[in-house]
């Protein structure tokens, strides 16, 4: 198991791919709202990643006060970077999550990401407090 996965789990951030007949349904859990975004990045990296390529880094700035929609926008940004920049995200270098949006620096590789994910949808979208932490659901169109 990669060290980054162990580290994320130690910090209580997990992602699961739930069974969905047509698409990919993500369940994300984390002790904080910011952790949900980090877990989403890890899930996306699992879906599209390989293990080669040159190191790369991208900065992301998104506006929006609705956390669930911000999560969709975050994943949409990763879809865009994968398709246009061939960027496979691996880890967050920085994340500032504010009331009106987020700013992030994402490290990864410029590779040939698997062109699996078309979009993040609003179907069954949720982002809520759960058991002292946070849980989110989002369905990806693949």
């Amino acid at each position, binding site marked *: 198991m990669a060290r980054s996965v162990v580290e994320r789990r130690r910090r209580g951030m997990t992602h699961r*791919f739930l*069974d*969905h*007949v*047509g*698409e*990919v*349904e993500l369940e994300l859990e984390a002790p904080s709202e910011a952790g949900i975004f980090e877990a989403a990045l890890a899930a996306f990296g699992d879906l599209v990643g390989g293990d080669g390529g040159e190191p790369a880094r991208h900065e992301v700035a998104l506006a929006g006060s609705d956390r669930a*929609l911000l999560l*969709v*926008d975050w994943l*949409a940004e990763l*879809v*865009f970077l994968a*398709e*246009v920049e*061939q960027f496979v995200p691996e880890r967050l270098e920085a994340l500032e999550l504010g009331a009106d949006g987020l700013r992030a620096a994402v490290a990864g590789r410029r590779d*040939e*990401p*698997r*062109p*699996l994910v*078309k*979009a*993040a*949808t*609003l*179907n*069954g*979208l*949720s982002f809520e407090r759960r058991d002292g932490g946070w849980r989110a*659901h989002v*369905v990806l*169109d*693949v």
Partner: protein
Amino acid sequence: MSSSTSELRPVRVDETLWEIPREARPGMRVPARVFADDELLQALAGDRSLEQLENVAMLPGIVEAALAMPDIHQGYGFPVGGVAATELPDGVVSPGGVGYDINCGVRLLALPLSDAELGARRTPLVHELSRAVPAGAGKHGRLELAGTELDAVLRDGPGALVARGVGREEDLERTESNGRLPDADPAAVSQRARERGAGQLGTVGSGNHFVELQRVERVFDQAAAQAFGLAEGQLTVLIHSGSRGLGHQVCTDHVRALDAAGGRYGIELPDRQLACAPASSPEGAAYLRAMAAAANFAFANRHALADAVRRAVGSVLGPAAEQQTRQVYDVAHNVAKVERHGGRDVLVHRKGATRAFPAGSDEIPAAYRAVGQPVFIPGSMGTASYVLAGEPGSMERSFGTTCHGAGRALSRTGARKRIGGRELRRQLEAQGIVVRCPTDKGLAEEAPFAYKDVERVVDVVERAGLARRVARLVPLGVVKG
């Protein structure tokens, strides 16, 4: 996600139609109807497609019924295989009712030789197809268009490529809507969508997209097959692709815009992915202009892929074979179109469903008008596909629509648990099918058992009077995205 499906089970209307009454759940404006036989209907208990169909029945302006074809399965917002018509001018348009892959569709080419005449050149031909057609991770096609050149494709579809020497004029007439949806506005397509689409014209993409070499195994309707130029033993190539990243981004952009706009029109729905606005509203009209542009891009994409297929045919089989490779037709299965049904103008959303107009329609090419519109139903990888022709029942029962494929029955993860890509490749090759796929993982996800039985799906639409069988095609080689 918790389920909110009504407790009422579908009631049988006739041997191929089931109905969930409007009273089943608060908010339903019309009944939900499913074309299925007993087995296909029972299989729906395993997913949430009926709940999604009930949600569609809540769309403002929906008329008659929310419909599902027999290949229905759970999607996002709309079920795949869903059909909804909203009355114009103020019925809603919902981008989720079209989907992210706007104008995903299929195009069939007929080659001028038989499988027997192809002989030992089968493997070289499939190899050449895989070289000619960028699939999977390869992003770039042969055409790199930007600026006004891309605008021309968004506005005019494949006609803009014919003007550049790609493909043939005769292909345009043999494309649904002549490959050009009206009111397409390149300016309604975001810069981000353009960036995603740049370089993707003439590429297959991933997932269930493919280019398949086939043989006409059986003709059911000689007159229609003759009109379509198909005969038993003949080779065909079926192309399945859509609007690629450009269309995905158009949908992403406009779902968000309509999600924000819905409240202004007093629209409340149980699933945000059904985000919608009146078709006559500024937001709805903007989506329709962008959707039409993305649809034209998709028609152009399949047109460019067909051009690449012809070149591959020429490379392996010679220039005469290339010249005589004809386009049978091209159909969309993710689109919203203004049509006239029941004496009124409606916006027909087809999400994983195919237009299937019957004989006599002036929307059909003159050469096919006596037999009905061609419809192509890809089976799962390794199984048969069908050529159908539209029947009058489609106009009476389903807004001129039939199914679009076999329909998924098993998740991608579930498919991978049951078979590895290498083993599946071995099994397909043991059947004599030449396979080209960039990843074993992607191959396993599209295993034949992950789909419903296409024979059963086609049987239902035929018995329902939506379309009839013309020919059965069996795979000889597949290039997977």
